[in-house]
């Protein structure tokens, strides 16, 4: 589960976004869409915690695991500098992934670099479907070509209107749901987007799964840092805190308590 893995490739996809390929045969063998790896960042000297990354692809034959990340802080800034050949400890595959619903058409909904998580699902999907992407600008709408190469139809929204519809990805939901016979929704993105989505889908009988998390420390369920709220009728407050690293990060939408 904790595997010293060699970095094979670490390429910039577009400014600020990178694709990193690890040689990690044991993880590649069992990884499923929606799961993540917990990475000890090489070169990060005075920070001790690992960083979690969604698995964007895994090739059991080649023994490789791919993660796609945005350079956002100290950890990812250091990871961006890691040269091929460098080794680091990679824990995984962790968490519960997406559970494909038989007989449905996948409607993937990605906010920001949430598309890094749903890409693995698209890759393993038996039938192509739709990918709804939302981001701040056209530049941040990453992986469009990859989804289209897998046969997924792209609907996009940007906050500044530089590509697709001006607005939020949730604005594309009705059009998307109306265009396929039996949709099943799989979504990953910022929490406000997922909560909005959860509320929009409430009581409509459409199978939906949301991938959400919080600041993570241990990655395996021991520290109780990364909890998210799930509905809980037995609790006087109507919710309980669930460890997203262990019970999640993917949850059935109807179980998620879609409020902060």
């Amino acid at each position, binding site marked *: 589960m904790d595997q010293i893995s060699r970095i094979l490739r670490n390429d910039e996809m577009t400014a600020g976004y990178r694709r990193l390929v690890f040689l990690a045969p044991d993880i590649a063998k069992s990884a499923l869409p929606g799961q993540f790896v917990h990475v000890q960042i090489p070169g990060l000297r005075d920070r001790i915690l690992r960083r979690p990354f969604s698995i964007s692809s895994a090739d059991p034959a080649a023994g490789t695991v791919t993660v796609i990340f945005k350079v956002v802080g100290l950890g990812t800034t250091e990871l961006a500098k890691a040269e091929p050949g460098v080794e680091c400890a990679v824990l995984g595959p962790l968490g519960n992934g997406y559970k494909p619903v038989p007989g449905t058409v996948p409607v993937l909904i990605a906010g920001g670099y949430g598309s890094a998580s749903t890409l693995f699902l698209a890759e393993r999907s038996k039938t192509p479907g739709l990918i709804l992407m939302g981001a701040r600008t056209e530049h941040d709408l990453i992986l469009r070509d990859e989804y289209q190469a897998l046969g997924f139809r792209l609907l996009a929204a940007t906050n500044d209107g530089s590509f697709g519809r001006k607005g939020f990805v949730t604005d594309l939901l009705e059009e998307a749901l109306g265009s396929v016979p039996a949709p099943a929704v799989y979504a990953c993105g910022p929490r406000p987007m997922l909560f909005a989505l959860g509320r929009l889908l409430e009581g409509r009988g459409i199978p939906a799964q949301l991938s959400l998390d919080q600041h993570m420390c241990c990655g*395996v369920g021991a520290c109780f840092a990364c909890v998210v709220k799930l509905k809980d009728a037995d609790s006087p407050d109507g919710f309980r805190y669930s460890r997203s690293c262990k019970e999640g990060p993917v949850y059935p939408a109807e179980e998620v308590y879609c409020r902060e």
Partner: protein
Amino acid sequence: MNDLDLQVKLGPLTLKNPVMTASGTFGYGEEYNKFYPISELGAVVVKGIAPWPSHGNPTPRTAEVVSGMINAIGLQGPGIEKFLHGEHYMPFLRKTGATVVVNIWGRTPDDYALVAERLEAEKDGVAALEINVSCPNVKEGGLSFGTNVESMQRVIRAVRAKTSLPLITKLSPNVSRIADFARGAQDAGSDMISLINTIPAMAIDIYTRRPKLANVTGGLSGPAVKPVAVKLVYEAARAVSIPVIGMGGIMSGEDAVEFLLAGASAVAVGTATFADPAAPLRVLNGIRAFMERTGVRSVKELIGQIQI
């Protein structure tokens, strides 16, 4: 080198080696038993148990800082009944054969006593209790007992009256004279003391101007606190005759040896486990390697052997 003597005696409690886990950093053992048999450790100290289930604090609950982290988890937990009977808790731990220490907390001395009473009644597999009077992240209980000697003693006495299990009192670093608390715990009937709990701390996001933790403040842990912890363990160990369990930022066998020399009879590994699930075992192997390298045959030759 199997002739190394790693066994330590903590008053009424004997451990096969001096490496324990720090409460709150090891869940209830199940997660890490997937990586290695947790029974290989000196003891497993589980996350705090109260009379009732508790949510813990809102998120974000943690923030990483230089050489450490600040947490305000707020003692999320299943409560004593689920702990005793739920499949992921005590029933699981019994099957592992691990030496289990149950950390307990409450809002009043009676709460602590109630948890102790329930554990006394079903103590199969429970090696000791650790009284948490030092959590900085709950509004009632926790630290409010740990920064006043009389309040701390009321809790210890209430627990002592309900159980014959070995008692550890976990002390806060957030006091002016640690020796007073160490002696106070000893006088009230605690069989040993453990320290340090986290150091009250906070961090601010300078762009949003908001605290990084929803709880605003939290407790600092990790290598950043180690020198503070070594000093407090040294002072506490000189003040009492009961055994001391030392913790605070231990990442390696060398770190652990430093605590032993300062006067700890055993050590606990905490935050390091978040970085490396195998950290407690690595620390144990590091102690072994240090002993071999320096010709020390028994851990007991290290305890309190600082030369001043």
